[in-house]
């Protein structure tokens, strides 16, 4: 297999992992953000938490695996993004540290102060990653200031405040509304009575917000300058990001869609999924599939527009990380692809089995008598 094809596959796999994370853990995050609104008493709150109780841990591994895959397949991207977005990463990490405990520890004691503290924590650990991921994606389109020295030591001038620019803030709202929508369709599917009804009632508002923000960001993107590689960069070049030239051109992010009009399908599917979530909200499973589609297609839209860029540099554009010069060696990509081909089908099989065993809405009697429940 050629180095070029391996890099393309690993770029696609990176997208697939992010999509799997958004589609599965996305409803965990969304449900957490919706907790204060959909659940009004302790039993209702437990109902929400127990819908994700048996599955959140597996869902979160998509993120852990995403991190591992970037480390193994795109080490330069891993080094640059984690150390460059230092404080944003720390905020996400803090959320991921507290979230497991707010789920598992909350109902282990009956004290209402203990429980309400963990409920507050649960809400915050849902809202932080949902916003940060959106803001981070927005920043990819603007580029962030970084470069490498001759020994390929990464340096950057990124600060937390410098990431909070208008366009990334808008994409942050997009990601928050998208994941809240996904949480709402999940809760509508996985609970009964009052919680389900409140979640269902929220769907049109959340999907509406998502659709408006998605279209606005799209129009804004038309006006943004995009990065383009101007030197010849062989697709099986050595992974050294300092050997090419890159410039900013007006409307540069539309060049991929201009070359391949079929790519317009991705944003259309994102909007279609959100509309389906609204129109089919009386059929919760289909509505959930609609919001899952919206999550998947939104990430695909961003990835396809950025291609072949992974992380553009605004201060030293030539140092931008791309699919063709930021990957691992050919041998590592091959070995890792082999591992994916063996284990990904297994993961999908047992994950599917777990969801099947836990199918059906969560009811109060499911957890009231079970000391193991959350």
């Amino acid at each position, binding site marked *: 297999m050629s180095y070029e094809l391996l890099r393309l596959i690993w770029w696609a796999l990176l997208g697939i992992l992010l999509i799997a994370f958004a589609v599965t853990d996305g409803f965990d995050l969304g449900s957490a953000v919706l907790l204060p609104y959909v659940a009004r008493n302790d039993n209702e709150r437990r109902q929400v938490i127990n819908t994700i109780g048996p*599955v959140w841990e597996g869902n979160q591994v998509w993120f852990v695996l995403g991190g591992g895959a970037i480390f193994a397949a795109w080490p330069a991207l891993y080094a640059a993004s984690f150390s460059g977005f230092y404080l944003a990463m720390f905020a996400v990490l803090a959320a991921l540290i507290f979230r497991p405990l707010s789920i598992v520890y909350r109902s282990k004691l009956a004290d209402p102060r203990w429980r309400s503290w963990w409920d507050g924590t649960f809400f915050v650990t849902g809202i932080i990653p949902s916003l940060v991921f959106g803001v981070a994606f927005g920043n990819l389109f603007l580029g962030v200031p970084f470069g490498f020295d001759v020994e390929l030591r990464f340096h950057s001038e990124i600060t937390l405040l410098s990431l909070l620019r208008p366009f990334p803030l808008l994409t942050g709202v997009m990601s928050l509304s998208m994941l809240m929508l996904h949480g709402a369709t999940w809760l509508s599917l996985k609970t009964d009575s009052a919680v389900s009804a409140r979640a269902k009632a929220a769907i049109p508002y959340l999907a509406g917000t998502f659709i408006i923000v998605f279209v606005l960001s799209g129009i804004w993107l038309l006006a943004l300058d995009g990065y383009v590689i101007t030197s010849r960069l062989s697709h099986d070049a050595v992974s050294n990001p300092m050997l090419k030239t890159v410039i900013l051109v007006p409307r540069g992010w539309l060049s991929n869609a201009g070359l391949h009009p079929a790519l317009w399908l991705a944003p259309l599917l994102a909007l279609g999924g959100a509309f389906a979530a609204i129109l089919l909200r009386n059929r919760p499973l289909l509505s959930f599939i609609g919001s899952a589609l919206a999550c998947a297609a939104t990430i695909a839209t961003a990835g396809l527009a950025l291609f072949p860029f992974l992380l553009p540099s605004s201060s030293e554009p030539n140092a931008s990380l791309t699919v063709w010069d930021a990957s691992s060696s050919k041998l590592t990509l091959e070995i890792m692809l082999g591992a994916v081909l063996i284990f990904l089908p297994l993961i999908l099989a047992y994950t599917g089995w777990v969801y099947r065993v836990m199918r059906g809405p969560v009811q109060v009697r499911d957890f009231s008598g079970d000391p193991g429940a959350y």
Partner: protein
Amino acid sequence: MDIVLLSRLQFAITALYHFLFVPLTLGLSLILLITECVYVMTGRAIWRDITKFWGTLFGINFAMGVATGITMEFQFGTNWAYYAHYVGDVFGAPLAIEGLMAFFLEATLVGLFFFGWERLSKVGHLVVTAGVAIGSNFSALWILIANGWMQFPVGAKFNPDTMRMEVSDFMAVLFNPVAQDKFVHTVAAGYVTGSVFVLAISALYLLQKRHRPLALRSMTVAASFGLASALCVIVLGDESGYTASVNQKMKIAAIEAMWNTEPAPASFTLIGVPDLKGRKTDYAIKIPWVLGLITTRTVDKQVPGIDDLVKLADTRIRSGRIAYDTLTKLRNDRRNAALRAQLDEHVGDLGYALLLKRFRPDVEHASEADIAKAAQSTIPNVPVLFWSFRLMVACGFWFVLLFGTAFYLSATRRLARYRWFLVAALLSLPLPWLAAELGWVVAEYGRQPWVIEGVLPTALGVSSTSSGNVLFSLLGFVLFYSGLAVADLYLMVKYIRLGPDQTLGHPVAAPRDMVAA
């Protein structure tokens, strides 16, 4: 403050903290599998209750392990960006495969362990428990393959075009002898931790004269499982000593506080007081031959002392400088074959030239004094290693004695008879954690000044972020982790006090037979 110091401090604190939860997860997951197997085979409900009770404590601990484990993965990127770039091609792969093969399995199935009792058949639930145990153990395997490569970087080559280490032989990385020994040593230490945990809490119940049927049965399982594991830890610890002597001679010499090369076979210093200034060990009690036998498996090979190893480092620094200079020239003349050949000849010592950077950023101008300082810097902290190692080993032998006694008492059905034994078992509760943390210190602090032995000095691995960022996150972790430690301990103590009847919401199923006592 110095970013290298802050980053190392953060890594040490978060790794040591994470490693409070990992060994218990490893050990308890297998003990749960054993007790549930007994339940499925005998059909006796008490074994289900035993599994569920220890399972509750397992769950409290597991959540902390997951929460603190993510920190470790993030940290390689946030605080050790140059490390991530320099060795990600090799080191990233086992971490990613850990996620694919092990962590996914364990995390996906652990939900069904708690939520699946009513929804699954007996065998179905047993399969879930087995999946969790297999997942957590394989997780340890891949993490230790990654760690083993840091101790003994086999199967990889430096690539001057990408300025990083790249895999050349993945099978060598996978079957790294250091990784294999470390894996068995570490998981067995985890099994000991789980066994001591179950043994100590059961002993507490027997001392309090409550939950006797559950406590006796749990102790029986812990005694035999613990004895086998404690023996395993020692055998594989010895084997680790042997493999370390192949490529980490300095670590061995530092653990032994052995300044001078002794005539073979070297004697083992049982105890003594290392004197750094005088470069000798006072009041040493030595056992002839033992060190030579452990580390070389012969009676005629020498074990090199610290002073000789520093001389060796000096030679390698000089050779490494040639590699470094060639690399600089090659950067401006990428196609020059003669330069590439010259680099190939010395590239194995490139890491030693990088040691100079701490004393002289422009390596090409390093003086004789800089070289001498860099060579001296290859000596790790001798007293810390000397004492950590001895304390860890003492704990290890204590576990053999403890479980040997427990096994004998359980075989003769006298587990509950002797108060002294129950008190000893209870008081041993903190020891496996102490031993595990000391083991981390010996393995990782003993690797200094290298982050990848002989390849990349720790000081170079850090990110180019501000030290303010690292200090801020360090303070954040200290704050978060202290709070979470309180919550975790509070819940553990609370559920141990409540005991199985109240934890399960029903009295533990009446046993049809009683273990005679």
